[in-house]
């Protein structure tokens, strides 16, 4: 990838190209390259392998800050609200999360909060069946907040450990739909103070710079507690999360690497950085 072994202007240009092609974005890439130039001067780096290593460490500094784990709460249920734009992998991620918790011996309940899209409820029910957990649902077209309300009540009554609420995909620029999500969150908060414990924004690794806008709007509306980056099993690198992490400090909690129930992994910054330069 960096063919020459010595460091020159071309090395920095090549690095900028790798970063931009990895969807890191123009500004964050330029900032990283500037830092790299400075370090290369200060440390008199002449070997391009060493240069790459310094860059990886720069990126790791951004990705490793803070705690990337799921919240641990003293009370049950732990409530997770899953949100994001259309088609990014929310429902599938919920299926995978349910499996993840079931493997830990936890009691899981799912809420079919997408009452809008064709066969959304059926899709979540199939996941519930596969994983072995119940799904709280209402008729298609009902109020998602009503489903969330029912689900929280049921989770408390059934002594559930983890409740995961699915929501319909929506573009962040649709104000009324973002308001609908805020209502779901308020209803959950009212029924169970402190909940939802996690509000996870699902981002598709194939998404480009629009990911920043998605984070901006969803965060403003809901105060995100974490990100899930899906479809990293493709050829997209998901580099947008570097700039997102440094601007918003929202931890990346999981990554999706396929369509099966065990294709969910905790986010590993080292692995991510290696893949960016693979």
């Amino acid at each position, binding site marked *: 990838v960096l063919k020459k072994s010595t460091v020159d202007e071309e090395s920095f240009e090549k690095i900028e190209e790798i970063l931009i092609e990895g969807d890191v974005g123009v500004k964050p890439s330029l900032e990283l390259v500037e830092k790299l130039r400075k370090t290369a001067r200060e440390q008199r780096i002449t070997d391009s392998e060493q240069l790459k290593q310094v860059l990886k460490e720069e990126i790791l500094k951004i990705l490793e800050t803070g705690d990337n784990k799921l919240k641990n709460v003293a009370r049950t249920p732990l409530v997770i609200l899953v949100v994001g734009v259309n088609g990014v992998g929310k429902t599938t991620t919920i299926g995978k999360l349910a499996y993840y918790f079931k493997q830990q011996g936890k009691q899981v309940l799912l809420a079919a909060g997408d009452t809008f899209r064709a*066969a959304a409820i059926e899709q979540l029910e199939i996941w519930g069946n596969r994983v072995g957990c119940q799904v709280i649902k209402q008729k298609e077209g009902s109020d998602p907040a009503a489903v969330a309300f029912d689900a929280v009540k049921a989770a408390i009554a059934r002594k559930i450990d983890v409740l995961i609420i699915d929501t319909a995909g929506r573009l962040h620029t649709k104000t009324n739909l973002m308001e609908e999500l805020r209502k779901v969150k308020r209803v959950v908060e009212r029924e169970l103070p402190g909940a939802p414990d996690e509000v996870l924004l699902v981002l598709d690794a*194939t998404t480009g710079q629009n990911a920043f806008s998605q984070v901006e709007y969803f965060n403003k509306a809901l105060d995100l507690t974490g990100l899930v980056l899906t479809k990293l099993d493709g050829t997209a690198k998901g580099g947008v999360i570097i700039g997102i992490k440094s601007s918003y400090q929202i931890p990346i909690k999981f990554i999706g690497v396929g*369509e099966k129930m065990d294709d969910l992994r905790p986010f590993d910054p080292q692995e991510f950085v290696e893949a960016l330069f693979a």
Partner: protein
Amino acid sequence: NLSNKFQEVFKKLKGKGKLTEEDVNLALREVRIALLEADVNFQVVKDFIAKVKEKAVGHEVLESLTPGQQVIKIVHEELINLMGKTNAKLNDAGSPPTIIMLVGLQGAGKTTTAAKLAHFLKKQGKKPLLVAADIYRPAAIKQLQVLGDAIDVPVFTMGEQSPVDIAKASINFAKSNLKNYVIIDTAGRLHINEELMDELKKIKEEVSPHEILLVVDAMTGQDAVNVAKSFNEELGLTGVILTKLDGDTKGGAALSVKAVTGCPIKFAGMGEKIENLEPFYPDRMASRILG
């Protein structure tokens, strides 16, 4: 936006006569950044900037424009040139049915778009048939059936049989039921999944679609070229549909996909409802990318 950035960059230039290489380089630096921030692919941007530079250096600056505005004008024209003309037509088979196959990555909007296309064709007096060839995704068949019901378009399904057999049988069904358009919805897949790409090739071999349309999410980033290139090399695309353009994404993937495949972008998905399908307008897209 770009014109504002240009005002800054060109405040110092006097602006009469022809565009110098220096003017052009200055302007194109800003254009390059704008295109990359709009998600146009790195390599595509490089080639595009080189092409524009050739056209721009020595170009007359029109009386009414500043040098910056003149460069933007050339960039805009070149973008429209690259993206082709509005072409919201589906290839028509000599003898019915006309067979359309939708392909693309997971979650791009294929199933929704299949229904939108069926509705579009029905409004034109055609008799479309939807084909549920996604046997993998939970409730995919149900999803297409619910959509088909809503627009009163029949959905052909054979449950979870092989998608190749389903596609084949659907053509016979269309012929016996006088359906003149067959729209095959396929499962989302990665372009690097050999087995699943082979499945698409087999479907193509079996039914010889008149249209193979790649459905691409408008917010796709740099990866758009990899996806479009692979799908085109493996299948030979006849067109592209760009979805989710109702958001605030700049949509540079449109330029990347067109540049790397040469295929026309035929339609734009402008929302989740069945009537939210519009012809693709290259000039509107050019303004959006540069905006």
